């Protein structure tokens, strides 16, 4: 039963986890702590807001944000791009998957101010004229979702899975899509959708 985040381990940006482990003084909150059970006299955790330019779906957006803000919350709460979903905020479900520099990244484990490369979200996948990306159309055609909440993350992961060259067989697709949980359990149809859209995605 792999939670195959190994497929996602190659991203080069600074993550919340590495910040926390390497810079204790600047850290927001150790992940092992529990809410409501503080040790007294904790250091103030807030730092002054930072200015950052993010290129999101080919548009440059200047944000003044908290250094602790994740890319996920920057997209959802500051840029009103709510298509990217929060399912766990711990890098365990894949619902927040976006592309940074063309690679799939868990936006909940990525600090917004650390990003230097262009970001692509589900809202930027279709063409300007509104025609769907082949992977989006394949997800509709194969009924590869039910509630649809994990779907933006599945589709962003699926496009990357193909471009990485990891869609060579059903078994390979299953393995490299296993970082994206689907509680409605559309998994067999997700595999079918990726097979349908594979060649169009490779050439697109």
């Amino acid at each position, binding site marked *: 039963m792999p939670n195959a985040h190994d497929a996602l381990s190659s991203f080069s940006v600074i993550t919340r986890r590495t910040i926390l482990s390497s810079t204790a003084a600047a850290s927001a909150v150790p992940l092992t702590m529990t809410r*409501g*059970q503080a040790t007294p006299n904790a250091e103030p955790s*807030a730092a002054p807001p930072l200015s950052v330019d993010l290129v999101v779906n080919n548009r440059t957006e200047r944000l003044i944000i908290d250094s602790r803000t994740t890319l996920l919350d920057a997209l959802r709460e500051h840029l009103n791009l709510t298509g990217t*979903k929060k399912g766990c905020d711990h890098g365990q479900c894949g619902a927040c998957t976006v592309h940074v520099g063309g690679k799939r990244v868990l936006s909940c484990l990525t600090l917004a101010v650390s990003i230097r490369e262009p970001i692509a979200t589900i809202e930027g996948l279709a063409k300007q004229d509104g025609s769907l990306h082949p992977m989006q159309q394949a997800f509709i055609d194969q*009924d590869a979702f*039910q509630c649809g*909440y994990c779907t933006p993350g599945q589709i962003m992961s699926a496009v990357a899975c193909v471009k990485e060259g990891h869609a060579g067989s059903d078994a390979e697709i299953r393995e490299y899509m296993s970082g994206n949980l689907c509680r409605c359990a*559309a998994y067999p149809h997700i595999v079918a959708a990726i097979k349908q859209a594979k060649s169009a995605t490779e050439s697109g």
Partner: protein
Amino acid sequence: MAGIGTAALRLDGPAKVTGGAHYGSDAPFGKPLYGVLVTSGIARGRITAIDEQDARAEPGVVDIFTYRNIGKIVPGNIMDGDGYMGTSIAPLASAAIKHDGQIVALVVADTFEAASAAAYRLKIDYAEEVPAATFDSPGTETVAGVVASKKHKDPAVGDAEGAFAGAPVKIDAHYATATQHHNPIELFTTACSWSGGKLTVWESSQNMWGAKTGLALQLGISPDDIHFVSPFVGGAFGSRGSLTQRTAIVALAAKKLARPVKLATARDQGFTIATYRAETRHHLKLGATRDGKLVSVSHEGFEVTSRPDNYMVSGTDASTRLYGCPNVASKVSIVHADRNTPGFMRSPAETPYIFALECAMDELAYALNMDPVELRKVNDTQNEPIKGLPYSSRSLVPCFDAAAKAFGWSKRSMQPGSMREGEWLVGWGTATTMYPSNISASTARVTLFPNGTAKVQTATHEIGQGIYTVCALIAAGKLGVDPANVIVELGDSNLPPAPVSGGSNSTASVSNAVSKACDEILAKRAQGANGAIEAYAENIPKGDPPDAIRKLYKGQPSFTGGTESKDSIRFAFGAQFVEVRVHRLTREIRVSRTTGAFAAGTIVNPTTARSQLMGGMIWGISAALHEATEIDPRNARYTNKDLADYLIPVNADIGDIEVIMIPEEDSIVNPLGIKGIGELGNVGMNAAVANAVFHATGVRIRQIPIRLESLLVA
């Protein structure tokens, strides 16, 4: 012309694949404040001190709400007892702590980051008492179901004990199922905004009208002043049918601060602020003749619940009626512990109880040396055994015939451990699935426009079952328009009420109401109406009380179906087959393929029905092999409260899933002949997987989930 039975792609598909579908978590409130919950670190006792100093020192913190300052919230009754709530435990009513992870504070700040940091800096001290965690813990209280609830009956007929004593072949075994949490991928968020005394709540819900009525009672305001919105729901599975206690807390915070408040509930908190499927235990006794005919069925069940609430699922209602048998006995008891109150989770009653029965049936097949499919056929019946009522329709045997053929069951060798492929032991198992066919009173407004378009409005809920498309298909078929030209509005409590989307009733309830409204439009047109023709319809199914619509406007469904009807018993059935592979050395268990055949009356949209049944089957695999919430018996605390440690299948865990839909007509269940399928897919799978594991290994595991370590003894 498209209509009922058309295999249609989802009309909401484009919204779902582009990020354009808005869920409860996507509240479009500008400049909100952000709320983060703090939950208790003990399961039983009292808060003795709250030190807010450090938390309030966090820049951006606006306020902290605890039992000392939240204000009055009426706890409310649980839904199982005619209320609206998932729990009657009011978390901020006092300093008392009734379960681990109880809400003890809401921290509100300008940003999510500040609220989160402050939540970690809040210091709460407790006086802790020893909690009772689960079965066998000191301090639990066991109460008979018939004492706990007036609604509960222990079905019985004949002399089960005497018949068991005299039966030539007997099974006497104990089974157990694990604690499970729904874990929909959308978190349990809530966003509240007040304007001129009116409250708007963005919260993903399976029960819009119930939520607004229940919240109004909690806050002491009129339901007319509350507007619940969630056009889409990010997974529900029962978890969003009842109202949690978080909503009223966020509403009061937003009111006091005169700003919208968005609550960002964390994944771990979802395990304790909402409901779950409690652990169960079962004692099954089956007696049979040597040719396999059941002469005695006895099913005793035990279920854990919270200290104050008498929640129970009482699956004996179904399990005692599945097979023909002249002597039946049953008893359900609930066990009160210091836990949050459990609630509805996908096929709440049938999943644990049919698991126990269908495992016992497999054991009986082996005691008889009879094929397990043959044993089900020998005991098939068209009349339930308790009162002798006829099934409105029951196509169990055609389901077994079709699924067995597709699966290749005839090639199975009966002997456990006899089918191998290399290092893998191959096992084939089967089980019956069943689920009550419910329908409730429901309302809908339909408008037909002169340009050939139509609009359907009803406050039902898109939880993944595809109800947008179902509504469009019903209207399209009736009115002769293209489904793509039907606008469907739902997920909004300002629309005409529909019942809670639970108990697999929605497609039946809503479709019949939409169909009735369409009939009225056609009648108006026949009488010469022109221009836009609108009709509002109230559908009261036969068997519902005369005040069913009045109750619906108070957010209360009136279910009829299952065992509730006086003249017939109404269930959908299916047959499920599973192939498992167990590694000879490591005992790793893989489900390589499954086949399910289901007969559930009219299938409105075969495309979405297939997905729903497939998802249910995977839920069954998950229950059998993956899912369990672990409880530390010392402190009554769940220990695996995240999606890495609470195991659900990933894509690589799932092999081939074959779904077969058997045609079935049933004019008794409702005019359109619809039986629900949302919960039919998972019920039998639990036992089918366990039975396959036995066939592969010869080891009978009577407790799910079955994990690698369960088989290491073999």
